[in-house]
C-alpha cells in the first residue's frame, strides 16, 4: 500500500513521517520517531496509555491514523517533561505514589498536564473526570488523585 508523507509538529519540533494509511499515530510516534513514552495498552481506545495532545486536545493516539496528523501540533509525554527532572505534576505523582508499574503513567501525565494547563485549580470532580478515561491497574487511582489534588491546592494557596 502506498505510503503517505506527513509533516507535523511533535513536541515543538517539525517532524516528517512516511506511513501507510493503516498505521496509527501512536505506532508512528513510537516506531518512526522513537517516542516510546506513549504506550499501547489496548489499541482499541479504552485504556488511555497512548493519550497524547493533538492541537490542544487530549486524544487517543491509537484511534488516530498517522495520516490524519498532517499539519497537526502533537505533544507527547516526552514533550511535557522538563529537560531534566520532573514537572510539578510529575513530582507530585512521585511524592504521592501515584504510579507503580509506570505503564499507564505517560497517559496520566499527559491528561493531567492538559487539565492543569486549562485550569490550574481544578476541583476534585474535574480531576476525576479528566483521568476517567485512563485505566491504571496498579494504584487504585488514590495516589494519582491525591497528587493532582495536592497540585491544585498548592496553586490555590499560591494563587497560580
Amino acid at each position, binding site marked *: 500500500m502506498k505510503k503517505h508523507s506527513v509533516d507535523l509538529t511533535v513536541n515543538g519540533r517539525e517532524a516528517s513521517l512516511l506511513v*501507510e494509511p*493503516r*498505521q496509527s499515530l501512536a505506532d508512528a510516534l*513510537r516506531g518512526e520517531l522513537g*517516542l*516510546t*513514552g*506513549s*504506550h*499501547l*495498552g*489496548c*489499541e*482499541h481506545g*479504552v*485504556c488511555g*496509555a497512548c493519550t497524547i495532545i493533538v492541537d490542544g486536545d487530549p486524544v487517543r493516539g491509537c484511534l488516530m491514523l498517522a495520516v490524519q496528523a498532517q499539519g497537526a501540533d502533537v505533544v*507527547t*509525554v*516526552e514533550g511535557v*517533561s522538563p529537560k531534566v*527532572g*520532573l514537572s510539578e505534576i*510529575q513530582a507530585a*505523582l*512521585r*511524592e504521592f*505514589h501515584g*504510579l*507503580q*508499574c*509506570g*505503564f*499507564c*503513567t*505517560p497517559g496520566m*501525565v499527559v491528561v493531567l498536564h492538559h487539565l492543569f494547563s486549562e485550569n490550574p485549580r481544578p476541583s476534585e470532580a474535574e480531576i*476525576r473526570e479528566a*483521568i*476517567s*478515561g*485512563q*485505566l*491504571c*491497574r*496498579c*494504584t*487504585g*487511582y*488514590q*495516589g*494519582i*488523585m491525591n497528587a493532582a489534588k495536592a497540585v491544585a491546592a498548592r496553586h490555590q494557596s499560591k494563587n497560580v
Partner: protein
Amino acid sequence: MTIGKPVVRVEDERFLRGEGRFTADYTLPFMVEAHIFRSPYGHARIAAINLDAALALKGVHAIVTGADLPEGLAPIQCRIPTHGDLSPYLQYPLARDKVRYVGEPIAVIVADTRAVAEDAAELIEIDFDPLPAVTDPARAIEPGAEPIHESGNLAGRWGFDLGDVPGALSEAAFIASDSFSIQRHSAMPMETRGLLASYDAGRNLLDIYGPTKVVHTNRNMLAAMLGMGEAEIRMIEPDVGGSFGARGEFYPEDYLIPFVAMRVRRPVRWIEDRVEHFAAINHSRDCAFHVTVAANRDGIITAFDVKLVTDMGSYIRTHGDVVPSHAAASFPGPYRVRNYRIDAMTVMTNKTPTGTYRAPGMFEANFARERAIDRLADKMGIDRAELRRRNLIQPEEMPWYVGTESVKRPTIFDSGNFPLIMDRALKAYGWDAPFEREVNGWKRGRGLCALVEPSGLGPFEGVRIEVDQHGKVQIFSGSSNQGQGHETILAQIASEVLTVPMEKIRVRHGDTGIITFGGGTYASRTAIMGGNAVHSASVGVRQKALDAASRKFGIAVEDLDLREGAIWHGHRNEPVVTLGGIARMLMPGNQEILVSPSAGNIPDNDGLVVTSYVRGVTAGAAVFAVHMADVLVDPETGETKVERYFVACDVGRQLNPLIVEGQIVGGVVQGLGGTFLEELAYNEDGQLTTGTFADYLMPNVYDVPPITALVFEESPALTNVLGVKGVGEVGPSGVGATIGNAIANALATDTGLNKLPLTPERILQSTGFGGLQ
C-alpha cells in the same frame, strides 16, 4: 536510616518522563516481527493446514506450525508439585492434531512488520473438524461428555479430612450451608506480554528480552527444551507493566519466539496485542464452593465442610493446580477450627488454561468462607464481628499448624496476634457505631472479612553486591520487578546497612546474565526473600570492609565503625577510609599491593563484592488482615456505591510505608474489579465473549471509594531477619467477601449474593427483584 521511611521510589522518574523501557520499546538491527495464528475454535480437530498463500505474501519470512517442532519435544512442564499426576494435560507450544481452546497457538508467522504478519494470517487455510465444546465443569464430568484429553475431563480429585467433621455436624447447634462461585477473571496488566529474541548462531548465544518474574527458572526450562546450555541463554527483564501473578508462567510463546528467532536467524519481536492477551494470558479464579459451617451454642465454629470444583481450562500449565490447592489448604482462615474437610475436583474445559492471579485461591476461599460465616451469624443472631472474634486463633497458639499442605509445604501461620489486630481494626473503623440505614432511597450496609495471607515462600533468593572505587553500590538481585517498587526497597535495605545514600545505590534485577541463581518474584516474597538476601549481602560487605580496613590500618575491628559510607575510627571520631577506598584496595591485582608490598597491605582480593543466598524458608510469613466497608445499594436497580473501604493488617515490619499503602490500596481496587465488574465469559461454543476492554470492564477512577490502610507492625515475622511479611496480596484477598457481606447487610437478605461478580442484576435477584414500581 531508610528502612521504614516513606522514601519516594527511585524508579519513578524514568516512568514519569516516559523513559521507562518496556519490551515493545526495544528494537534490534534487522529485527522482524512475529504474530501468532490462534485457534478460532474452542474444540476442533485440525484436518489440514495450507500455508502456500500466506508464505507467498511479500514480507513474510517464515511460518512455523506444530509439524515443524522438533521430534520428541516434550510438552511444557508443570514445575510445582501437584495433587496427583497431571502430566496427561500438559500443553505443547503449538497444537498439532487438535485445538482445545480459542486462542491456542497453531502457527507462528514471521514477517517484516506485525501488520504484514497479520495480513498473512488471513491467508492461512486450515480445515477444522469442530468438536462439541465443553464449557461447564459440572457437565464436563458427566458420563458421555466430550473428552478434551484422552485421560478424561476430571483431572484430579483430592482433599483433606481433619478432625471429626461428621461428628461436629451432628452435634451442631447452628448450621449454615450454601454454594458460592467466583467467576473466571484475571490479572490483566496494562502492558501485554512480549518477547524479543536474538540468536547469535556463530556463538550459539540466545538473548531474550521480555521475560520476567522467574527468569532463571524459565531460562532453565527453555535451555532444556532447546537443548542448549543454561548459560548460553540470557533472559533480560525490561521494565514490566504489571504482573499480579499472571506473568512468568512458561507460556507457549516463551518457547516459540526464541525457536523462530533461531530459525530465521534474525531478531524476532512478538508484542502480544490486547485481544490476544485475553485468550493467551492465564485466566484464574474460576471455581465453585459448597460450604457448610457449623457452630455450637456458644458461638464456637466447630466445623467447615467444603466441596470445591475448579475449572482449570484446557491444559495444565506451569503452575499446575496451585490455585485450588492454596484455596483448600488455607480455607479455615484465621479461625481455630480443627474439624475441616474438603473434597476438591479439578476439571478440564475448553477454555484458556488457568494459573495464578494475585491472592490465588485466597480471594476465592475468603469469599466463600466469610459469606458463609455471615450467614451463620445471622442465624445465630449474634454480631458478625463478635462471631469471628470468638473463633480467632490466639497468640499463644502460634505457630499455628492448620494441618493441611499446599505444593508439599505445610500450612503454618508463624506469628500474629489476631484478636488484638481485630479489636483495633473494629475500633478504628467504628464498626459498632450506629449508621443511617437509608439515604435518599438507597440502603446502606456494612460488611467485614477476616483473613490470613501467607506470604514469602522459598526456596531461596540470591543477591550480589558490588561496591566500586567511587563508592557506588550495585545490587544484582535474583528477584524481579513488575512495578511493585523493588528497586526502591532493596536499595533502602542496602542504604541502611551500608550507610550509603540511596542515590549511590543501583538495583539491577531480572537478568540471568548478572547473577547465577535467582528465585524471582511471586507469592509476595520479594521483600522477604530478596530483601533478606540484600540484607545478608550488605552485612557481608560491611564486614569485609571493616576487616580490610582493620588489616590495612592496623586498627582493631572493634574500634572501627561504618558511617556515612566510610570506615571511622570510633575513638578518634575521624574517617579512616571510604567504602570506595576499600573497594580500590580490594581490587584484584591492586597496584598498591604489587608495587610496594608491606605488612600493612592486605592480600590480593576479589573486590568489595559479596554474594549471598538466603535459603529454605519453610513456612510463609502470615499476614492477618481485617477488611471493612460501607456500601450503598439502590434497591430499585441494584446499583451500588462503595462509600468507604478499610483494610487493617499486621505486616510485621514495613520497609516503606508509601509502598505498603500503595500495594494495599491498589490491591483493593483490583478486588473491587473482581467483585463487581470483571468476567472472562464464554458462550457454549467456547468463544470468549468478553475479549476486549469494551466488554471486560476494569475499575476506572469513578469506581473507587476512599480506601484507608491501617498498617500494624505488631508481630514481626519469625522466619526472616528483617521481620517483614509480604503485603502484595492482602489488598484484593478479602474484597469479594467484604462487599458481599455489606450488600447483604444493606438489603437485609439471607439469600443470593453468592455468585461473583455482583452485577446490579444479581444484587437485585437477592431480593427477588422486589420493590418494583
